[in-house]
């Protein structure tokens, strides 16, 4: 087996999946005569164990799709018409540089804004790839808080940015509480570890408003009303403290603020939580007793847990629980959020916050529609937008407004993409981007503890370039001569990690290129109990039930905002966990609920990764046409039957899908999965048109699960 790029014979190249998923699978690409002929999982990888998934098994359909954008394009028709002509890279770069320079001179550089996220999550080509360029340009800073931003703020406020539980240690867990995470669809490679724990006697419990695949497979599913998760977690703490189920020695040695927490959660008895959550008080009591009693217990939280008004407090409360019961003492005990924090990524070298102009304004990408339409007062307005690694028309809320903004004739929009996405359709210039097989990258994971290296396996198709090369070319054309813009990919890889950090001992670029992946230099899963004796990366070094970091007010972790700490939200934060009810629910907003009585949830699809793969034939066959799951009671009230086309709407917008009458959702809840493309929708709109732009309490997290809608049968013309 070789790890090099070979053109004339058959070779197997070691790669890593680039998708925005915790699992970062080890990929093996078979290349014959310069063409990739097979993509498979690496059976030796201890976490992904030879598996990919329904999305990436068919990655070659993506790479070699006839719909790939392979050359730079310039718009020839009206905005959004999707009419383009092929141009050269020189013409494209000239036009972009000329327009950026002109707009910068006329309106100031803040009239230009980047828009990106994790279309690829390699350290080189992912989250921060454009940051040095836009810092140098002086553009508006893009705050990107799609995923776990509020969760990270809350988690850091409580236990610091620790890796938490090694997912492989979960075979040792005695009680696995999966909270707002559909493991089988979005974290598949974790499931065998859960299944193994179960064989060894662990109980698997799922808290989710929907009876997902994962909930169906669990020993116990607790269907919870959307947005009320904090109430359940606080009531669990109430029971644990009331009944003396605490680990008092652990609390005394390794936590701060227990007495204050005990006073606080005394206000949240199970009877109260039962009203909020819809889960009977006896079940809450039982859950708390079982969770505390079956050590080591672990909580696996999903990204969805933060997506409501009080999402930050949900994670605050959940992060307190393991300390209360001493779960951290043994391997497999604690909480699993993002093991990403174990990786000594040299973020500073990638995003270069030192290059930012102090006091530069920050605009959150959820508000892109408001920013582009002028509804948000911005001086200067945004007159140029550069999109890469993202398809905001599908993944941003407030779709109608965003489309109006993107339709502005005076907005200059550049989109770097693999396909003509719903966003690229509105571009003035489209630039061709490589897929993972055509680029080198080095990867962290937010779902296991292995560093991965992605060797390129084929030459770039057409004139596609990696994002790194895109920004090298653009910087050169803008006349930016700083060394940061001269770095080759290999030089960037050399800077990607703090290679001297203890976690990187035994790992070199060369060893990674050859092996494809290596476990961080941390104890093996059977022995990894990082907080058996405290040692939390908080100010006190302990679990902070009373958070000292809360004193500084609400903040977004700078990683999610190009490294900037300016214009943080800053609003005061209660240092103790507390309940913030959902903003849009029948109980909390009866006036709104009179018009829009159903809570819409918009989880990730099984066969798409956000909107990636939503255009590919085989993935669409698996995912089938977009649907909304609706409980039989709600369906009957509306005279809706399965297969019928229905319209979902609220004050923000509307979209149509087929109904699927299904008892797997609670009455009052409807579920439609994210990822279908707008252009394929009969209503020319998707669920993003009804989702709110309002932030959760911490970290400017989204509130996509805090959405009321009405559903009615379509009167098809």
């Amino acid at each position, binding site marked *: 087996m070789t790890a090099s790029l070979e053109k004339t014979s058959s070779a197997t190249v070691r790669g890593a999946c680039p998708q925005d998923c915790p699992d970062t699978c080890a990929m093996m690409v078979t290349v014959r005569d310069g063409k990739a002929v097979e993509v*498979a*999982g690496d059976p030796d990888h201890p976490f992904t164990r*030879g*598996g*990919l*998934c*329904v999305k990436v*098994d068919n990655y070659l359909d993506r790479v070699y799709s006839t719909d790939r954008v392979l050359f730079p394009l310039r718009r020839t028709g009206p905005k959004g018409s999707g009419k383009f002509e092929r141009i050269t890279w020189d013409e494209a770069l000239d036009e972009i540089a000329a327009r950026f320079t002109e707009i910068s001179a006329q309106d100031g550089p803040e009239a230009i804004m980047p828009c990106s996220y994790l279309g690829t999550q390699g350290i080189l080509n992912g989250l921060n790839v454009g940051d040095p360029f836009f810092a140098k340009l002086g553009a508006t800073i893009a705050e990107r808080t799609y995923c776990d931003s509020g969760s990270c703020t809350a988690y850091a406020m409580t236990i610091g940015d620790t890796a938490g539980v090694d997912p492989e240690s979960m075979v040792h867990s005695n009680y696995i509480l999966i909270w707002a995470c559909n493991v*089988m*669809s979005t974290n*598949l*490679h974790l*499931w*065998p570890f859960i*299944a193994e724990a179960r*064989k060894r006697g662990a109980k698997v419990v799922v808290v989710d408003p929907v009876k997902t*695949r994962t909930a169906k*497979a669990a020993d116990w599913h607790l269907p919870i009303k959307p947005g009320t998760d904090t109430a359940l977690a606080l009531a669990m703490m109430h029971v644990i403290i009331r009944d003396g189920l605490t680990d008092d020695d652990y609390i005394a040695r390794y936590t701060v603020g227990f007495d204050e927490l005990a006073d606080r959660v005394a206000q949240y008895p199970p009877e109260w939580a039962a009203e909020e959550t819809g889960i009977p008080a006896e079940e809450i009591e039982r859950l708390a007793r079982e969770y505390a009693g079956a050590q080591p217990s672990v909580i696996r939280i999903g990204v969805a847990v933060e997506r409501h008004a009080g999402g930050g407090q949900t994670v605050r409360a959940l992060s307190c629980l393991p300390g209360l019961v001493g779960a951290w003492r043994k391997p497999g005990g604690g909480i699993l959020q993002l093991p990403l924090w174990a990786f000594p990524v040299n973020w500073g070298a990638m995003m270069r916050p030192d290059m930012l102009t102090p006091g530069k304004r920050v605009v959150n990408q959820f508000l892109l529609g408001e920013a582009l339409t002028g509804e948000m007062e911005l001086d200067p307005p945004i007159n140029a937008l550069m999109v890469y690694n993202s398809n905001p028309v599908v993944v941003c809320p407030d779709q109608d407004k965003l489309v109006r903004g993107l339709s502005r004739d005076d907005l200059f929009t550049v989109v770097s993409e693999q396909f003509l996405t719903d966003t690229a359709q509105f571009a003035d210039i489209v630039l061709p981007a490589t897929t993972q097989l055509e680029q080198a990258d080095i990867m962290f994971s937010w779902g296991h503890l292995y560093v991965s290296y992605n060797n390129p396996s084929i030459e770039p198709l057409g004139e596609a370039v990696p994002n790194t090369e895109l920004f090298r070319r653009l910087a050169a054309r803008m006349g930016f001569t700083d060394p940061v813009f001269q770095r080759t990919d290999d030089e960037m890889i050399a800077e990607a990690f703090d290679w001297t950090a203890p976690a990187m001992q035994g790992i070199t670029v060369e060893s990674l290129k050859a092996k494809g992946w290596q476990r961080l230099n941390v104890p093996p899963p059977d022995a990894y109990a990082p907080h058996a004796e405290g040692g939390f990366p908080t100010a006190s070094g302990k679990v902070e039930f009373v958070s000292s970091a809360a004193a500084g007010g609400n903040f977004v972790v700078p990683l999610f905002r190009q490294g900037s700490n300016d214009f943080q939200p800053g609003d005061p934060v209660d240092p103790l966990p507390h309940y913030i009810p959902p903003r849009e629910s029948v109980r909390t907003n009866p006036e709104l609920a009179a018009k829009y009585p159903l809570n819409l949830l918009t989880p990730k699809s*099984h*066969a798409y990764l956000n909107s990636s793969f939503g255009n590919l034939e*085989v993935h669409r*066959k*698996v995912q089938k046409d977009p649907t909304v799951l609706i409980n039989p009671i709600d369906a009957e009230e509306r005279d809706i039957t399965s297969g019928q086309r229905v319209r979902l709407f609220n004050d923000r917008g509307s979209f149509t899908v087929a109904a699927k009458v299904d008892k797997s959702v609670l009455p009052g809840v409807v579920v439609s999965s994210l990822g279908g493309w707008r252009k394929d929708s009969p209503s020319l709109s998707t669920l993003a048109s009804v989702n709110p732009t309002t932030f959760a309490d911490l970290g400017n997290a989204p509130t996509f699960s805090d959405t009321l809608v009405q559903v009615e049968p379509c009167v098809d013309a």
Partner: protein
Amino acid sequence: MAYVVTDACIDILDQSCMEECPVDCIYQGDRMMYIHPDECVDCGKCMPACPSDAIHWEHKLPADAVPFRDAAVEFFEEHEQASGGAAECGPVGIDHPVVTQAGGRA
């Protein structure tokens, strides 16, 4: 719907697929294995694991394998106990008629 076990498995029952399946959705009949169409997560791990090349993906199914796709659906409708994990369920011990009526192996 999902991955489908076809006639190349009959009387072989290698079971490598069972070991590979991350969600334990491959059940043993009498003469053949069956993949639960609702429990399968389409991950594809079973396909290369099968030494008999008996497993195909529903969406790239050879024409002569179509009866086995339908057989899997009917098998699990018929045998409701075959759900929630093959390990716990154990061998079902019965086959779908398509399999029962298949010829033996030389």
